């Protein structure tokens, strides 16, 4: 069973649908598990044929489970750069996975909630992505998937150290629990650095939209655990679950503060952002993210009546460089992309007032 990247272009993943608990602030909840096969070296020491064997073993193992775990397999090593970038924008593979070399692949389920990356930093990276703030559901799902795969292959596991990983920062549970938050009001009110410092104190990490080292574009931030050893999976889920409600509260208070103290300024800021997005003739990805972020907050505060969060979430993804090129059906250089992006935004945002935005 294989999946055509082109089939994914016009759909959206479940996690983008903008529903789920607390979806005005929480975009998605994600858990990933790092696993390695016991009888092969880690990726840095794996020869070309080892990598091919690892890929085949895990692919076969996963595809045997297809009744329980309906996934399609994508051979990432055979994809064009644009398609790999597309999967990165879609959060289905990491940038590292897209840019590495040799045998590797990813298995994806239909709702794009599950992604099984083979030959990333570890032999296997299992990811479950849920819309809104829903970590317990993500944990139940990933726990079951991990058990199912473990019935097919032998994981590298140490009695004292737990699941063994290429990087000692992941050893133990091999688990990263993260929540993607939209925090525009904390950015405007300059509270965000303070928040980061307090999160670092409780050993939680803050990253941008596309994980490690990425910029916090569009005021999106991922909060995740740093520690993986000496705490159970349930404790790690609990740790992140307990801190997120106070961040949501903090963001909502900052939004209320902005409405109360400077509603006109805020309304102006949001309306101008909306205006630029609806009329611009050429626009960069960065500016788009920045303006969409203001508009998204405006929609949540009822300042823009005729737009809906799912449409906006979709625009965040579909105006990214690879999505834009896939949608327009042509490879475009930066300046052509900026023109196409502006055209795409005008078309979608100007039809929004007529009822439902047409799909492409």
């Amino acid at each position: 069973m294989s999946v055509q990247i082109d089939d994914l272009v016009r759909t959206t993943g479940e996690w983008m649908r903008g529903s789920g608990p607390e979806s005005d602030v929480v975009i998605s909840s994600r858990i990933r598990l790092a696993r390695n096969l016991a009888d092969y070296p880690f990726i840095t020491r794996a020869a070309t044929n080892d990598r091919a064997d690892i890929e085949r073993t895990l692919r076969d193992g996963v595809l045997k489970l297809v009744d329980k775990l309906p996934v399609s397999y994508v051979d990432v090593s055979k994809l064009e750069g644009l398609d790999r970038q597309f999967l990165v924008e879609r959060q289905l593979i990491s940038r590292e996975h897209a840019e590495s070399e040799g045998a590797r692949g990813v298995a994806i389920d239909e709702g794009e909630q599950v992604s099984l990356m083979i030959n990333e930093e570890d032999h296997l990276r299992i990811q479950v992505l849920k819309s809104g703030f829903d970590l317990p559901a993500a944990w139940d799902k990933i726990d079951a998937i991990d058990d199912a795969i473990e019935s097919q292959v032998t994981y590298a596991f140490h009695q004292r150290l737990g699941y063994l990983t290429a990087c000692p920062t992941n050893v133990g549970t091999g688990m990263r629990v993260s929540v993607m938050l939209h925090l525009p009001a904390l950015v405007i009110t300059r509270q965000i650095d303070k928040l980061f410092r307090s999160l670092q104190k409780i050993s939680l990490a803050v990253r941008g939209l596309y994980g490690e080292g990425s910029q916090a574009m569009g005021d999106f931030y991922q909060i995740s655990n740093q520690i993986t050893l000496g705490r159970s999976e349930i404790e790690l889920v609990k740790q992140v679950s307990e801190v997120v409600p106070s961040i949501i509260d903090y963001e909502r208070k900052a939004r209320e503060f902005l409405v109360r103290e400077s509603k006109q300024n805020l309304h102006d800021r949001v309306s101008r952002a909306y205006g630029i997005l609806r009329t611009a003739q050429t626009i960069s990805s960065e500016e788009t993210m920045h303006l969409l972020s203001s508009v998204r907050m405006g929609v949540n505060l009822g300042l823009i009546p005729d737009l809906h969060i799912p449409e906006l979430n979709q625009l965040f993804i579909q105006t990214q460089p690879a999505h834009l090129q896939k949608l327009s059906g042509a490879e475009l250089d930066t300046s052509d992309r900026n023109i196409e992006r502006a055209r795409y935004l005008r078309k979608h945002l100007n039809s929004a007032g007529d009822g439902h935005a047409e799909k492409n």
Partner: protein
Amino acid sequence: MKCQKCDKPATFHITELTGGKPKELHLCEEHARDYLNENETPTEEPSGAAEALAQQLAGVGKTVEQLDKLDKTACPICGITFFDFRSKGRLGCSHDYVCFEKELEPLLTNIHGETAHIGKRPKRSQGDTDRLTELIRLRKELKTAVSNEKYEEASQLRDQIRRLEGDRK
């Protein structure tokens, strides 16, 4: 829950992991801010932290000669040297956790504050992990034998690998 320093509700729950054992604090926003400000530490670079730590910690309490010797120590299974690990921050195979156990311990303590796993374990018995590790070594030797055109040795190794793989299930 009330703030530990005043009567306001505690909205910040801080677990301090630096120092001996974890310390829990429940504070209102104002006192949390005071607490965090007075505990201001220079900002750490989160990415590449493993590499940086590995480089620092490995050298602690060792003479130049000792460190030099340690750097040249190689894992008998995957062949990675301690120097390779220190410079890349990535291990070469699961046996590294065994053969560099002593060197990794301070690193693990520093990253996680703990050195033992709690939580999920594989449902199936892991069987003989030494046999699986042995497979990593044999496959590497096979590759070397083939590239050195030692075909007789290669064929013996291939038989050994098949035998071990056959025992797998």
